[in-house]
């Protein structure tokens, strides 16, 4: 990786930290503490299930909100404020800028997820007083959540490279919602006929399949995750994010910075 990408990524990380993006951790910590105490008092035998479900869903939602709302401004804000001018007038290629921004936000989300994961495990320890073997699957669920972040970050960057922050937010959020129901969309496509079937199938495979990356419920029920699924999901997320990133680069390489 070029040194310039690393510098742009670390500056993006610094921006996120100084813009108080990581303050969401405080809200998350409060949520997890409250949930753990409350669940410990009202739930019988399902404390672990509730804490894992609630904790991982919160990790996913908090991260998605950051990925979308920080990601959509990564390029457009730099153009609007003209901070990009002094970067691109240096020996920095446009693709390096996009890739650096991507890794900067992805790094922010990984760090954020790491701290939230500590919160989830702390809450889990509080309600069940000990860890058990199946808790390891929570780590796999967290890994899948990070893969989702990579996809949505790349998509937010893609939309940010050609549209306004508002439109980019709408597009990214819409894809997140539709992608969360990608399996249902594929099921619907299988039930239709003719042109509708072609269109629905095309749309179902075009949107990111977030439902395949969501194993929160099965992990909460202590069901193991197949190694094949881990491999497939990893490849899928990396290829999808890379394609979205390529799209962002292709658009940005041709864009006039008026």
């Amino acid at each position, binding site marked *: 990786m070029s*040194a310039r990408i690393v510098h742009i990524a670390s500056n993006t990380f610094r921006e996120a930290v100084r813009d108080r993006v990581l303050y969401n951790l405080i809200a998350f910590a409060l949520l997890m503490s409250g949930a753990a105490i409350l669940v410990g008092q009202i739930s019988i035998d399902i404390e672990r299930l509730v804490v894992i479900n609630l904790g991982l869903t919160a990790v996913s939602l908090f991260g998605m909100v950051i990925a979308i709302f920080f990601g959509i401004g990564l390029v457009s804000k730099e153009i609007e404020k003209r901070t990009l001018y002094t970067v691109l*007038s240096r020996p920095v290629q446009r693709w390096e800028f996009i890739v650096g921004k991507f890794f900067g936000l992805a790094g922010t989300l990984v760090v954020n997820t790491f701290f939230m994961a500590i919160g989830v495990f702390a809450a889990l320890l509080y309600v069940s007083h000990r860890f058990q073997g199946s808790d390891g699957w929570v780590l796999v669920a967290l890994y899948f959540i990070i893969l989702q972040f990579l996809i949505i970050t790349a998509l937010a960057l893609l939309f940010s490279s050609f549209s306004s922050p508002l439109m980019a937010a709408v597009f990214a959020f819409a894809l997140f919602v539709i992608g969360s129901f990608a399996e249902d969309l594929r099921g619907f496509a299988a039930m239709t006929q003719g042109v509708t079937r072609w269109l629905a199938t095309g749309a179902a495979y075009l949107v990111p399949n977030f439902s395949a990356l969501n194993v929160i419920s099965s992990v909460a029920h202590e069901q193991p995750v197949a190694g094949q699924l881990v491999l497939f999901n990893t490849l899928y997320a990396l290829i999808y994010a890379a394609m979205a990133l390529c799209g962002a680069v292709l658009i940005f390489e041709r864009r006039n910075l008026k």
Partner: protein
Amino acid sequence: MAVIEILGLEKTYTVGFWRKRPKCALKPLHLRVEEGEIFGFLGPNGAGKTTTLKLLMGLVFPTAGSARILGLDFNHPQVKAQIGFLPEQPYFYDYLTARELLEYYGQLSGVAAKDRSRRVGEMLDQVGLKDAAGVQLRKFSKGMLQRVGIAQAILHHPKVVFLDEPMSGLDPMGRREVRDLMEQLKLQGKTVFFSTHILSDAEALCDRVAIIHQGDLRGVGAVAELTSSIQGKVEIVWQGTLVPSSLRALGADCHVTGDAIRAVLPEGRQDAALEALGRERLRLISVIPVRTSLEDYFVAQLKPVEETAGATA
């Protein structure tokens, strides 16, 4: 040797949502800037100065034409490492301190890690921001931001420095400081290409200037040549508050400023005017031939189009 060679660079934007129509921001521009000179790119607001600079920086893409900087195509990565750029009304990452910002730009420009910290310190010192090095840019005044902007433009020892309206929005002291900095750059052998619509700055600083209006290059030349043509008039200044009637009779155009009077009259009547002042025992301050100012030249270059536009309207 031409350090900057603009070869028919042209930019046309498409405007309009439904009915798209072309809007020419820059007509084919041909220009040469020689090594070590301070070159002023003059024009009123919206003339095409910033578009030209953005084209040269690779921020917008030309519709046609090309340019060479330091003998290489202007988009060549090696060129970017040897140029510095200050955009108009610069805005920087305001969550960074001045030192952090310069460190970051030093990294992007490929300044070696061992030299970076020293270079940043030198730059902050040079632009008078040493004491504000640790302050976040969001707390900086406009003048301080402009100084940071200049520091980032010259941090990596570029051979050519492009400055877009560097004195814009600065107070007289700030303008003076920027002018001094530009003169220092020239002494260091750097080529400075700057755009401005403040003609006094251009006149004080530039070796040569180009005038652009409505995207069209109107004139290029050495400031000394453009301002040297004597108009056949002379300016006489003396101490006093009243204009002698004999001087009025000579057709002098007089202006009273404080306790001095400035009269402009045809060169042939200079001796008669001086005799008249001597008779009145008035204290003479100066006698200077009236030369064409850069402003006169600038206005003359813009006039034809405005008149044509007026005639067709």
